[in-house]
């Protein structure tokens, strides 16, 4: 058993750490403050081959494995969870299902757009009445001649108002329940597609979240992704992979908060010594470090399994559940170490804590992860 990262993975970490330090960290607070999509950095990530990195070379990607993508998301999220989220969504929730389920024609058309074409991708499953119970979506698509006509709306769509390509799920046969759901590749310029409300969120302000609306939206027949009626299975399979991305994001947030707290407590003197020297602080750090290490092993294990092409549903759910809850705990404890300063916007702790919360909610709440884990235990 070898726990060492490969030489290439170490270089990915180094590249992403340098990029994060030089490009992401300096604008992270402003990105949050202004709720601004970090467009320039996303363009640079396209230039570096990070956006869509797991897409094979023949379609413009680098042919990287899921672990490399997880490391990239982790590094970005240490300083800006929004940037990590944009990458996680693009790689895990848009490129991945098209690569896995797309026809040769769909891959040839869309994957180069999502890599060398600098087009951002998104994933649209959630609806107002279909959150954790994703099978209850109302968005419908009907085949009319050579095209599908889609009506309905999706909410909380990450990259919603910046994406060009969406993987969308809609009912094609309401009588069949989950077996009546199909997946589609939808471009933002298709007639009848529009972006609705931009969400104002607690955190992750740089990640553009919006409602998307389909009003008699015309989708070419050939844009059905996978077979008709296989949408629910495609969605669940995609979310398995997406959870590795969110696990990496949670891990990055926790690691970033831990590092900030280490630096702060070493310099903050109270009662005549740095507060890092108090046992209470040290024990808290020990728990933080332990959680980060465990979370890293879980996340990398899930990513490695995905890369091996074996089933990883339970492992991805465990990684996502553990790291997201650890991110919340760590940011809360780290903020406490900063005292009153942590509660101000002069330090990144309050942003990190706000950003951490969503990791326990999206791409399957912590409760849903427990359902997934227990459902895979032969109970």
């Amino acid at each position, binding site marked *: 058993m070898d726990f060492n990262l490969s*030489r*290439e993975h170490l*270089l*990915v970490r*180094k*590249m992403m750490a*340098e*990029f994060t330090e030089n490009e992401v960290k300096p604008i992270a607070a402003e990105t949050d403050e202004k709720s601004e999509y970090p467009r320039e950095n996303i363009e640079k990530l396209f*230039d*570096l*081959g*990070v956006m869509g*990195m797991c897409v094979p*070379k023949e379609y413009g990607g*680098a*042919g*990287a494995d899921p672990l*490399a993508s997880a490391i990239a998301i982790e590094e970005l999220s240490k300083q800006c969870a929004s940037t990590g989220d944009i990458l996680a969504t693009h790689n895990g929730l848009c490129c991945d299902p098209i690569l896995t389920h797309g026809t040769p024609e769909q891959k040839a058309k869309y994957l180069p757009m999502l890599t060398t074409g600098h087009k951002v991708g998104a994933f649209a499953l959630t609806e107002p009445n279909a959150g954790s119970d994703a099978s209850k979506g109302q968005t419908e698509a009907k085949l009319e001649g050579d095209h599908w006509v889609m009506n309905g709306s999706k909410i909380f769509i990450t990259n919603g108002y910046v994406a060009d390509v969406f993987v969308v799920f809609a009912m094609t046969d309401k009588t069949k329940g989950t077996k009546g759901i199909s997946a589609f590749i939808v471009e933002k310029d298709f007639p009848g597609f529009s972006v609705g409300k931009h969400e104002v969120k607690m955190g992750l302000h740089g990640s553009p979240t919006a409602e998307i609306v389909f009003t008699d939206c015309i989708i070419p027949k050939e844009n059905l992704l996978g077979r008709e009626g296989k949408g629910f299975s495609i969605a669940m399979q995609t979310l398995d992979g997406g959870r590795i991305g969110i696990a990496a994001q949670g891990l990055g947030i926790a690691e970033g908060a831990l590092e900030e707290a280490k630096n702060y407590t070493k310099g903050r003197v109270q009662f005549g010594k740095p507060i890092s020297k108090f046992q209470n602080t040290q024990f808290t750090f020990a728990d933080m470090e332990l959680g980060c290490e465990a979370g890293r092993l879980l996340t990398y294990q899930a990513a490695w399994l995905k890369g091996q092409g074996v089933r990883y549903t339970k492992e991805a759910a465990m990684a996502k559940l553990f790291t997201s809850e650890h991110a919340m705990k760590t940011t809360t404890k780290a903020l406490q170490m900063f005292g009153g300063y942590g509660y101000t916007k002069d330090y990144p702790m309050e942003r990190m804590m706000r950003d951490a919360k969503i990791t326990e909610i999206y791409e399957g709440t912590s409760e849903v992860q427990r359902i997934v884990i227990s459902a895979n235990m032969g109970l």
Partner: protein
Amino acid sequence: MKIIVCIKQVPDTSGKVAVNPDGTLNRASMQTITNPDDMNAVEAALKLKDETGCEVIVVTMGPPPAAGMLREAMAMGADRAVLVSAREFGGSDTYATSQILAAAISTIGVEEDDIVMCGRQAIDGDTAQVGPQIAEKLHLPQITYAADIAKEGKTVTVKRMLEDGYMTIKTQTPCLLTCIKELNAPRYMNMNGILSTYSKPLDVYDYEKLKDHPLIDATTIGLKGSPTNIFKSFTPPQKGVGMMLEGDGKETCEKLAGILADKHII
């Protein structure tokens, strides 16, 4: 056309600098980086590669772990690398180092259209001697402190940055340029580069490979071939805490003059 870029692995001075009891650097316990000015040389070469499609070869002299730095340069876009490494080369000062690197570069081959690039100086020795010495030993024209480089055919136009201004010089290839940080912002490694770097060629030039080169002789390499003698190296005593006077009025100036007078400085 090809560009040969000399780079050096140096201690990361942003971390802790460890010093042995005898005053020498404890390199084993320190993190290393590619010398910053050398990164500007790599970037300048890669820019010319982007424009002309030329080949970029990175070269370093150092212990085997320096290969990692060469792989990083190839992950940025360099095509191949040469690691010059042998026990016989250990302990070389700038004279011996430039002797060995010049031998390595001429073994790679410098043709009519080629450029050799170096960083201005390394942050560990701060001599700025190796680049110019390589040029002399290879009989190449050299331009130091390059802040801008333009190549047209066999003519290279370089804007040199001096302390009190700029000087623009033209020369013909083959030539050697030393680069400064004002020249460019080095690019990051990229995903395609990272995933292909370990399949790019990295040749090791050991003593056997270079020993018959006219520049290589027991008296010109390693510790024996190094005319520099270090008598003593030490950590200077720490200066006391400075004092900051704020304000721009006459009062502040008078206060400053008073302090300096009290200390018998003025």
